[in-house]
């Protein structure tokens, strides 16, 4: 419950305060957000499976974000940033979908 509240508060704060993101970080933000979403869906699935562990969640969340940003950064340096970020989004999207399917089976039994 508090976690859900945290999400809501984060969205509200982001919309209201309108913080300025440094331009260095700006290109990596969307990928980082998608990676974090993937971690969150994975965590939700783990929780429904009953194997949720906060430490694992924290580590996976942070590593997901860092690795995703790193891949995009590397891609930018190699000149294939657009393709690599597309690839990252595709992979994360597939994972999100599979996690969402698992969650759906738990919640709706279907």
């Amino acid at each position, binding site marked *: 419950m*508090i976690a859900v509240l945290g999400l809501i508060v984060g969205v509200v704060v982001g919309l209201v305060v309108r913080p300025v993101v440094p331009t260095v970080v700006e290109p990596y933000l969307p990928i980082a957000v998608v990676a974090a979403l993937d971690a969150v869906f994975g965590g939700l699935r783990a*929780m429904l*499976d009953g*194997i949720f*562990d906060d430490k694992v*969640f924290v580590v996976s969340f942070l590593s*997901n974000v860092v690795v995703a940003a790193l891949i995009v950064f590397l891609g*930018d340096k190699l000149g294939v940033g657009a393709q690599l970020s597309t690839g990252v989004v595709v992979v994360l999207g597939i994972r999100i979908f599979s996690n969402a399917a698992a969650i759906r089976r738990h919640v709706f039994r279907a």
Partner: protein
Amino acid sequence: MATDETPEPEQKPEPQQGRGPADRRPMPPESRPAPAAASAEGTDSPKPDDTQQNAGKPADAGVPAAEAEDKASGTPQNGRQRLAASLWPPRLTRAQLIVALLLFILGLGLAIQVRSTSDSSALRGARQEDLVRILDELDNRSQRLTEEQRRLEGQKTELENSSDQAEEARKQTVEKEQQLGVLAGTVAAQGPGITLTIDDATHSVEADKLLDTVQELRAAGAEAIQVNDVRVVANTYLSDVSGGVQIDGKRVAQPYRFKVIGKPEDLEPALNIPGGVVQTLEKEQAKVSVTRQRKIIVDALREAKRPDYARLSSR
């Protein structure tokens, strides 16, 4: 397609299960996660109460209230119940706080990203190479447009020139038409010149004398000549008829009045030179007078005749 989270906690407590979490279907989750969760706690929980132990497990292990609640209900655990249990009675635990913090960060990033993509142009979030590409495209486009502009301006100048030229040509044509009209006798003309009057009482002046006069005037630079009311032009002919002279088939009566446009200083001496026209005519008993005038109007006209046979031989 296993997630990061599913395998790790599973493998940590129970390595002997091996590949289990990656392949298994989550349909009967309550049977297998239960021992995993229990052993994750570090306590080898006995079988009988593993449902109870499992109850509070996913969200926050070790909260007595939750366990008590689940114990009281005594229902078999599944994902849905776990979700509901973790959602409703809000519990302030380390795990919840950490997850809340991370989700707060996620929400913040999400909101910022949505904001920045929705409130500003598409260029804001674009990356360097995309921007370079867009810039290139814009450069190309502006180059193309500049080229087109140059082409159109050239066309415009050309058209202006050609319309200027057409105007010039039209002016020249009008001018030439007027010049030729004076020569052909189709337009009236005015200018300095002389009048020559031949009063021939004895009718001794014949067509050849008049022709000589006209030739003399032409030789002296006469530009337009009129005899009485007949314009004298290139194809004018003179012929004798009984008791007079016809010019271009029209009879001209006495006295013959020549109106001549030209340089008076040239015309008058040309007529008056010794043995010239005037003397010859006076020999024929005609009275001849020549006067210079500042302004002569030659207004007898001939109609322009379209040639039947003669055609332009070149452009």
